[in-house]
């Protein structure tokens, strides 16, 4: 499961934050399933200093709606189902087998 926040207005995010960026109401913490689908991906050839070259990034939409940018070590396709997991406190994703 992945820790995030949910608002009564329907906004969901994987960050833990006190108030909703859309409506300003208090958000409650919520655990989201760690499975989702690939919205997009890219291989960045000129990452900032201190990052792998090249750097494989993906945008994932988790099953209950929140989205996140994470790393991947896999070849991805848009729409593919993936598992999002923590590796040394950083999110990565890999295709569901």
């Amino acid at each position, binding site marked *: 499961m992945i820790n995030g926040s949910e608002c009564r207005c329907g*906004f969901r*995010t*994987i*960050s833990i934050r006190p108030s909703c*960026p*859309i409506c300003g109401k208090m958000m409650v913490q919520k655990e989201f399933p760690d499975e989702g689908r690939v*919205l*997009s*991906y*890219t*291989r*960045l*050839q*000129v*990452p*900032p*200093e*201190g*990052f*792998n070259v090249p*750097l494989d*990034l993906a*945008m994932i939409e988790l099953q209950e709606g*929140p*989205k*996140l*940018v*994470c*790393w991947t070590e896999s070849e991805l396709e*848009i729409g593919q189902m993936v598992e999002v997991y923590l590796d040394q406190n*950083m*999110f990565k994703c890999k295709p569901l087998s």
Partner: protein
Amino acid sequence: MARPRIESVGMTRFGKRDVSFLDLIAESFEDLCSRADFQGADAIFFGSMNPEAFCSDGNQAVAVSDRLGLTGLPSIRVETASSTGAAVIQEGARAIISGQYESVLCIAAEKMTHLETRKTTKILAEVIAPSERMYGATMPALAALITRRYMHEYGMTREALAKVAVKSHANGVLNPYAHFQKNIDEGKVLGSKVVSDPLTIYDCAPISDGACCAVLSSTRGPVRIIGAGQSTDTLAVADRQTLTSFSATRRAAARAFDAAGISPSDIDVAEVHDAFTSFEIIGTEDLGFFEPGQGWRAVECGATELNGELPVNPSGGLKARGHPVGASGLAQAIEIFLQLSGDADGRQIDARHGLAQSLGGLANNNFVTIMEAVD
């Protein structure tokens, strides 16, 4: 409601310029004075995204009034990331509408090329949400995620993106202020170095130096500002409902068109924030010129070329005019001024209504400004 006018404008050539930040600003002001008689102003509205980081200089609102010999005038710094130049002209316009000032001097500038590209890229990436920046996401990386998604949803071809860059460069050839004044072909774009796939280096606006300025007046000038809109979006791209449209542009456009009392079909020429080629296409859809998913087809059929039904970025856009980040928004409005006042030389379009759209950060502080030629 009073509608402020643009009286006169000035610019430096954009590009890699071996002069200081303040000298660039002075050069743009000299250009303004050489084009028209400067009759003074009641206040200065100055914009720059990050002179503190790029140039290690602070208190620049005063440095500008001091450098231009305008000590004593109120001078204020405005900043909204890469839309700073658009914020400057909208704030200046608002000050005139309020009735407090008869005329204001708007100035926007950035000096970036003296730093190593890595350092500049790092400063530019500081506008990105920490939750995305911590993964090494840069502006081109986030733009690439958006571009690939757009291609997936709407079937856009890689060639259509290349056509945007080819068009921008062709227009830049006709603009003496442009960073790049050289034609390129599709093969050049497609074969150039990949920055973040599917985007190549020719899909990305360059790092440039440049300054520009404009005098706004309550009564004088050949162009009127008839509509202005601004809207924000979430800091993180991942927190948005869609990747293929920028809701802050849609809200800003709705406000600007409502104030102007005209519709997108009335616009004869537009300057759209093409920090990346795909952003020009998304921009033309968010502004209501084309339906979602149709912007790339409009590029393919030549509708946005100089002689098309709606010329987009006749100046060369951020891509070819160059992108001194804080200056670009004002430079866009200046291009619309030149087009509407008949001063756009070899790239002149027959136009009565023009629009400038500017994106702040990764499209989360966006401005739309609509202008009209005074009869």
